[in-house]
């Protein structure tokens, strides 16, 4: 009886506090009061998100969180990363456990209409492919009829896989795993003939196989996977902040502003650069931040191109080409609305 009462009282109190707080404080205020950002990230994809032994995080998605922290606190280290599996990520964001989900998550309609999220933009254009053993001598994914395919559970990958085989009238056996690592090991151990995930992930995982030369990535890309950071619905200020952090990164690259030359560029006469770095107009105010918000981002984290190169591109062991992730001026799809 005692236990029940105490639990319930706490429960009720908690609920009331919750209502009261939910009505008042915006997420940005909460984050500022807390002193650090809580970011949901991927615990196991090198290049996108990977914690080391000591809990330090690196990766493309991780650096995006650091950019948001830099904009808010002028300090990219004020982020607490929470490792989320594909299964856990949505409930973690729904429940408010994380302020921001930056974990190679695909932007889909139902995730915005049914699950209560908003995607702040597309940080990485990806597509789904297949990894198969070289000795099978396959040249196309269309030859996979009857195969067993390892896939991570609870992802759009799982759905695209079903679509692809249904659309091409082929049969297959899906073998589901709760995390990517298990799925890859199962593929390596021979439980499956192919492993499927986003193309970027395939290159990463192939590098990590005991013998990378044994496997090849098939040429087909079977889906569109626009990956981006997601936030909860209901707080437009926060949504804008995250969205414009992404656009600031892309704009900075377009304008040639990077971490090394940002102080030099501050003296520039170009109005776009002056607006970006906060010398003309106070665009940070509308986001609830200071005028130098974008300056802070570029200064601490660099621009989009730098983040890409450092984690995925030439400056990383993965050596992924920019491809469609190049700026629109260079034949890619990365395009940011102007800051003005």
């Amino acid at each position, binding site marked *: *009886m005692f236990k029940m009462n105490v639990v319930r009282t706490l429960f009720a109190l908690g609920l009331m506090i919750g209502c009261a707080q939910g009505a008042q404080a915006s997420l940005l205020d909460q984050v500022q009061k807390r002193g650090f950002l809580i970011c949901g990230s991927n615990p196991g994809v090198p290049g996108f998100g990977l914690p080391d032994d000591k809990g330090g995080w690196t990766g493309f998605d991780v650096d995006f969180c650091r950019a948001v922290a830099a904009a808010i606190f002028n300090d990219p280290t004020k982020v607490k990363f*929470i490792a989320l599996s594909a299964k856990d990520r949505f409930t973690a964001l729904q429940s408010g456990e994380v302020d921001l989900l930056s974990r190679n998550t695909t932007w889909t309609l139902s995730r915005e209409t049914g699950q209560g999220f908003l995607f702040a933009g597309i940080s990485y254009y990806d597509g789904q492919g297949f990894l198969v053993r070289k000795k099978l001598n396959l040249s196309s994914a269309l030859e996979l009829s009857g195969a067993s395919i390892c896939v991570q559970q609870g992802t759009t990958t799982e759905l695209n896989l079903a679509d692809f085989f249904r659309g091409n009238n082929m049969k297959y056996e899906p073998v589901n795993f709760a995390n990517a690592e298990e799925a890859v090991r199962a593929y390596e151990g021979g439980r499956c003939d192919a492993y499927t995930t986003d193309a970027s992930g395939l290159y990463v995982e192939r590098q990590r196989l005991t013998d990378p030369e044994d496997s090849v990535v098939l040429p087909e890309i079977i889906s569109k996977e626009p990956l981006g950071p997601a936030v909860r619905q209901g707080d437009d200020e926060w949504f804008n902040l995250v969205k414009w952090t992404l656009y600031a990164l892309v704009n900075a690259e377009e304008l040639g502003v990077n971490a090394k030359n940002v102080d030099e560029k501050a003296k520039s006469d170009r109005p776009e650069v002056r607006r970006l770095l906060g010398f003309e107009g106070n665009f940070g105010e509308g986001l609830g931040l200071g005028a130098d918000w974008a300056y802070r981002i570029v200064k601490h984290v660099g621009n989009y191109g730098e983040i890409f190169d450092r984690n995925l591109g030439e400056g990383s062991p993965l050596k992924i080409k920019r491809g469609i992730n190049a700026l629109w001026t260079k034949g890619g799809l990365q395009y940011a609305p102007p800051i003005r």
Partner: protein
Amino acid sequence: MAGSTRGGPGANALYVLQGNIPPRAPPLRRRRLIDLLAGNLFDGWRASLLTIATLLLIALVAPPLLRFLVFDAVWSAPDGAACRAPGAGACWAFIWRKLPYFTYGSYPLDQRWRVDVTLAMGAVLIVWLLWLNAPRRNLAALLFFGAYPIIAFLLLHGAPFIGLPRVASDLWGGIFVSLLVATVGMVVSLPFGVLLALGRRSSLPALSLACAGFIELVRGVPIITVLFMANTMLPLFVPENLAPDRLLRPLIGVALFASAYMAEVVRGGLQAIPNGQFEGALALGLGRWQMQRLVILPQALRAVIPGVVNNFIALFKDTTLVAVVGIFDFLRTVDSARLDPVWAGPTIAATGYAFAAMFYFVFCFAMSRYSLFVERRFSHGR
């Protein structure tokens, strides 16, 4: 007297023995091997057949097992290459290399002494509690259930005001997390289990219904779903900035689960108490709570010690399931270490599981022996 004087059927009836039964051979003294063989293992063709079949079974299982675990095992190696050699057995070098990870998870290297101290304190208190003849066991109970959780929390989680840096719980892992989950389950489930059991037996129908409902609800579902619920729904029910830590959630789930099972064990003990005890206590003028505290619970709890220990064994085995919500308990660390490409090989999984099995076996077997010992010890007085 003549046989007919007994009355009833005569001595020539079919079922009356004619003559004496021949005396049986004296019971075997099964001290010598030869007696054992002749009188037990090969006593008649059926026994012989059974013995031979069992021996065959042993011969089939034991030698490959021994070869894998001992004779063909790789005892030291810098990486997995030696273990991948054809015909190699268990890769103990892998266990040896990964032992710190299995024990502490990713707990920072220079802070691991804190885990050691916590575990040592826990071990001392538990031995003190379990040793039936130890002096001042009340004090031990007080320390274990009262002071120890607080000290352990401060040590493990950190307390900047006494100079211990915080260690985020997502770095915790390994054996120490398994023991932590089990200990929390035990420490919480005992008092709550007693309260729930008393509540269920209460004469207030609403209270007893609520307690019974809770107990049966929790016992009717798999622990995995309780853990899922704790993991995904607790944060939805509490305000955002109070969302419990990712390790705290499964701890709450395990505590709820263990309490419900404990309540049923305690209720069994309460039911075994004769009515006279209640009546006697009332006749002495004891109040309801005095009666429970001084008369009923001491008897009931003593009677259920074996049941409680068996519950602990089950709880300890169930701690492996917290992995489903992403906690790196001991088994999960073993299971993830086997995926390390440096070591990955055909024998690594079996080696890791063999090591984990030995660990769990030692703990659970020791607990079950202890339970038997206590049972016997208390039955002496009866």
